[in-house]
């Protein structure tokens, strides 16, 4: 088996007395599409912050491409090819959409090449996302769902090896969710990226990923094939504690 591109080793985050993430291990290889699910407050986003350097773990290590980046600033993660989106889109509001995409190309992605050189142009990325018509519009003026897409474009601009997606589907219609998921798979297939995708709406994720990890109260309680995970008693238990079986949620 190939070397993991992204590896979390016993990652923990404590805020004062509260343990948000508790000794989580996760390996992601190139070309893998991994989903992370979990009830509210399971520590998904906090875990993502540690994977992108936004937050340093209080214990454990994060390795990207074999290099230990624990405690390094976010730009070091970006330089190693980790790109992410945020739960609430964080675009550069005053800049035209195309400059938002160009931003990553100029910084994090400067020294790398995409598997497809078509993705080396900000214009192509916008076109791929169906945002070509708003290239010159300041990003703050786009609808929230288009800002979400643009964020994926910003991450792609960084010529990533690892793509971290935080709740892409939130606030989108079924058709839009479907389109986004197709798009994410296409990106993964064409560029051979490792993709980690957090989603609160479980059903959406289960349909599109080949592997899913479940976080509950900061701990990883399951990791594997979506169908097997959905039947895992610990997982069912965790979700019953909240609102019911994973498959029935968001249905």
């Amino acid at each position: 088996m190939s070397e993991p591109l992204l590896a979390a080793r016993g990652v923990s985050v404590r805020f004062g007395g509260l343990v948000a993430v508790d000794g989580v291990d996760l390996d992601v290889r190139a070309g893998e599409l991994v989903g992370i699910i979990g009830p509210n407050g399971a520590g998904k986003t906090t875990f993502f912050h540690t994977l992108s350097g936004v937050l340093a773990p209080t214990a454990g290590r994060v390795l990207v491409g074999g290099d230990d980046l624990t405690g390094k600033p976010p730009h070091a993660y970006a330089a190693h090819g980790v790109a992410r989106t945020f739960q609430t889109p964080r675009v550069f509001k005053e800049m035209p959409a195309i400059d938002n995409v160009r931003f990553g190309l100029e910084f994090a992605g400067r020294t790398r090449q995409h598997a497809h050189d078509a993705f080396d142009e900000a214009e192509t990325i916008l076109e791929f996302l169906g945002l070509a018509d708003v290239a010159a519009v300041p990003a703050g003026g786009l609808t929230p769902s288009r800002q979400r897409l643009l964020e994926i474009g910003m991450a792609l601009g960084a010529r990533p090896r690892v793509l971290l997606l935080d709740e892409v589907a939130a606030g989108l219609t079924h058709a839009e969710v479907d389109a986004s998921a197709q798009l994410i798979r296409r990106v993964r297939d064409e560029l051979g990226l490792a993709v980690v995708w957090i989603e609160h709406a479980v059903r959406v994720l289960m349909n599109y990923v080949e592997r899913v990890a479940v976080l509950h109260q900061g701990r990883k309680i399951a990791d594997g094939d979506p169908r097997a995970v959905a039947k895992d008693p610990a997982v069912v238990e965790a979700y019953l504690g909240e609102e019911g079986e994973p498959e029935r949620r968001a249905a």
Partner: protein
Amino acid sequence: MNSRHALLALLAGGLALAALPWLLSDFLLALALSCVMYAGLAVSWSMFCGPTNYLSLATAAFFGLGTYVTAWGAGALPYGLSVLAGGLVAAGFAALIGAAVLHLRGAYFAVITFGMGELVRHGITYYEKAFEGTVGRIIAEAPESTTVYWMVLLVSMGAVAAAVLVRDHRLGLALRGIGSDEERAQTLGVNARRSKIAAFALSAFFAGALGAAMAVRWTYIDPLTVFNPFIGFQTVLIAMVGGAQTILGPIASAVVFGLLTEFLRLQFPYLFLVILGFLLILLVLYLPGGIASLFERWRWRRGNV
């Protein structure tokens, strides 16, 4: 307008301004000098503070450090070299304090940069009194006033050229990203700390060099004169009234302020400042984008006809 056009326009403008000493009386040349100096200060301030939305009140500190480099080196260093050294000392100081305080934002940053300036001023006052036994210094050999004008013009043009280059290159993009959402910029690969320190030091270089160049205009230098917070406030005002996101805005506003200041201040010192204060409030309330937003509005209207 891309960098090359802007730099060519700058060169043409600079050459035209360089001819002023042959055309103007001494009084008018002094006026031009004041406008050029404030343009240089305001442009260098906007270079960092415009895109990043930081509010630095350290300009007076950089300027004052520059003048003291000239004063300390008087007799030992040739004029041109003191100007360069003044800029470098200010840039070094900026890099040092920048490394310590650039993680602070908003009012904190404004207060601490102001405090740093005052600290340097009082520190120098104390040093001079305790170790040199003097309050101020006399600069005996000053270059011709036309030489001073050319030097200040040269430094100010350097500031504008640097601002154009920063704006059109990666550093400018990084600074705009930092101003918009610093953490987001970092996750896209911007080394925010390094970019901010570099831009802050670059902007300080020009303020320090201008201070060093202007030092010889005063024959007598003491900390209270050259670290005058008014210089810093005035710079911030000019830049923000002109529109700190642009380069032409601060230049235009420096000319307006320079002329107003020199004409009115001597004759009606108090009334002038009352009017200045009143105008400032009106401008901020009713033209918050600065003078530059007037041009934009006008261009927008023409484009839509």
